[in-house]
């Protein structure tokens, strides 16, 4: 479990959101994948996709037709203009909330060439994920009990870890039940190694 790589990911995500990137990639590891899924669950990033060195085609563009198919489409629309509107059956398949949508993404066979592609979020001209900092460091690892976490989530300092005082601040921990958010850990009475704080 390399915290050095995680530190690189943290600063990379901060830099990427400062540069207002829509899509960025980080090296793949089990911890990174789980942490990014946790971030997505908390709403900090929009998508997590495993891919190669080139970014995966954007999901909305994947549904588009190839240029040669456009001709057929144009002729069909000239004959049946109502086909331009999506039929109810068609929308039902693509409802994001209703059914899981799987997309075709090419993942390289060679694991060294795989990257994790993340969609960054912005709201009101501000990045949703602005700050991401390491708590447990490679040179000084910290473990917190569930009591410590209770205090920290109530904005108090505990075990040399500052409380979650910023509005909407989250802390992710690596526990024996996987990577969880601090409040989730308090709910389940779990302790663990704090990885990073995000707000």
């Amino acid at each position, binding site marked *: 479990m390399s915290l050095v790589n995680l530190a690189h990911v943290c600063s990379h995500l901060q830099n990427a959101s400062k540069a207002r990137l829509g899509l960025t990639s980080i090296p793949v590891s089990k911890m990174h994948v789980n942490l990014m899924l946790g971030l997505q669950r908390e*709403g900090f990033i929009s998508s997590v996709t495993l891919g190669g060195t080139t970014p995966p085609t954007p999901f909305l563009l994947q549904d588009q037709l190839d240029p040669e198919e456009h001709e057929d489409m144009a002729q069909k629309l000239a004959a049946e203009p109502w086909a331009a509107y999506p039929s109810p059956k068609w929308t039902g398949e693509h409802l994001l909330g209703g059914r899981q949508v799987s997309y075709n993404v090419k993942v390289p066979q060679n694991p060294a060439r795989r990257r994790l592609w993340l969609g960054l*979020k912005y709201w009101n001209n501000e990045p*949703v994920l602005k700050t991401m900092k390491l708590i447990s460091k490679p040179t000084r690892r910290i473990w917190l009990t569930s009591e410590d976490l209770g205090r920290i989530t109530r904005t108090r300092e505990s075990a040399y870890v500052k409380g979650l*005082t*910023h509005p*909407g*601040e989250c802390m992710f921990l690596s526990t024996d039940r996987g990577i969880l958010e601090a409040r989730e850990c308090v709910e389940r009475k779990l302790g663990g190694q704090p990885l990073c704080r995000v707000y």
Partner: protein
Amino acid sequence: MSVCRPVRCLFASAALPKPSAAPQRSFHASAPRAARRRRPHYPSIKAEDLKLLSQAAETQYPKYDTSETALLEKRYTPAQIAAIKAAETAIDNRDLLTQSSHRTDPWLLPYEDDLAEVDPVTDHAEKLDPSDIPGSHDLQDVNEEERDEAITFIANENLARMFPDGLPEGELSEDTQRQLQEAMGTAVTQALLDPRASFRVKNRHAAAALADPRHSIVMPDLPRIENRMVRQTRRLSSEEAEDPRQKRLLQYLNWDKQKLRSIKVKTLVVHGVTNQTRMGKIRSMYYLTIAGNQAGLLGVGEGKSVEPDEGRKQSVMAAIRNMRPIPRYENRTTFGDLECKVGATKVQLFSRPPGFGLRVQHLIFEIARAAGLQDLAARTPRSRNKMNVIKATWEALCNQKLPDEIARARGKKLVDVRKVYYGGSVH
């Protein structure tokens, strides 16, 4: 409701049997640690000290004895004596001894009063009821002649009151002439409004009551106080010059003067600056002013001019014009911790629980007070340049991230638990 229960309560012995102290099993080998000693919220005062205090209060503020009350009865009405006694019993002598102090400021009111006169500033004007008039209260409308007669009579009365030394006679200067004309106009207008000019009463007491100001529902005019302080601070409406800058500001804000007066303004930074030209150094004054309505509006303005007064006015107007809304959590503190950096100055603001107060440095204190924040802590870990501290604090307060915005940005539901727990009774 059970019927048996009240009966059982009736027959039960007065003192309910206390649950006997069960022999507590000790689950630990070591002796239980005593509970932490609680400190009382206020210092405990020994009964003896309290007695001493009472004695001192008794000697300093003694009660009236019988000879004194007899003297009082000679001078005051029973109602006044009752008021005096009520006031004496309402205030504890010990409080008077420990807490009271004499005011020495120029605006102090003559509190140590013998209550012999009605002071128009501190006391309510004396009022009389219709029930105080003996006899019938029947009113009749006057006819034209009676009315003219009454108006002449009342106007003469008013004029006599205005010129106690008699009307000026002989060759009159233009000024005196105009004054006399105005006084006559006023006297006649007052006479027209007088109830004696419109009603006739047979009852002598009722007729007197019509002229008595104690029966009037119109409040008497406040007296013109004459002392040094008042003379120096008095401003006539004619002296007050219309400030074109203020006029423009009011137009810009679409406010009236009353609203502008409610804005608290404070100049926090003043220093001289010089501009080196080929003519030599040009000195001017720099002002930085904050403005706030103490309810979530805050502005910072700068002004610079060769004329000190001009520069200050510039900064005040700029501060009011720059006022921006400050989100406040429960109208008392910030939403979470804030941080802002301007130049080499970094300001960190921390939200705090109710009743914490403003434990911040002086500049941030003034800003927080103008914005209406009550619970705040702050640190300025780096440079403490006054101008930059103020600007950074303002920026930090203005650019707060609100929970609603965060919730919408993340697509999550956020609820203020405090608000839910207290059923919305906290702001």
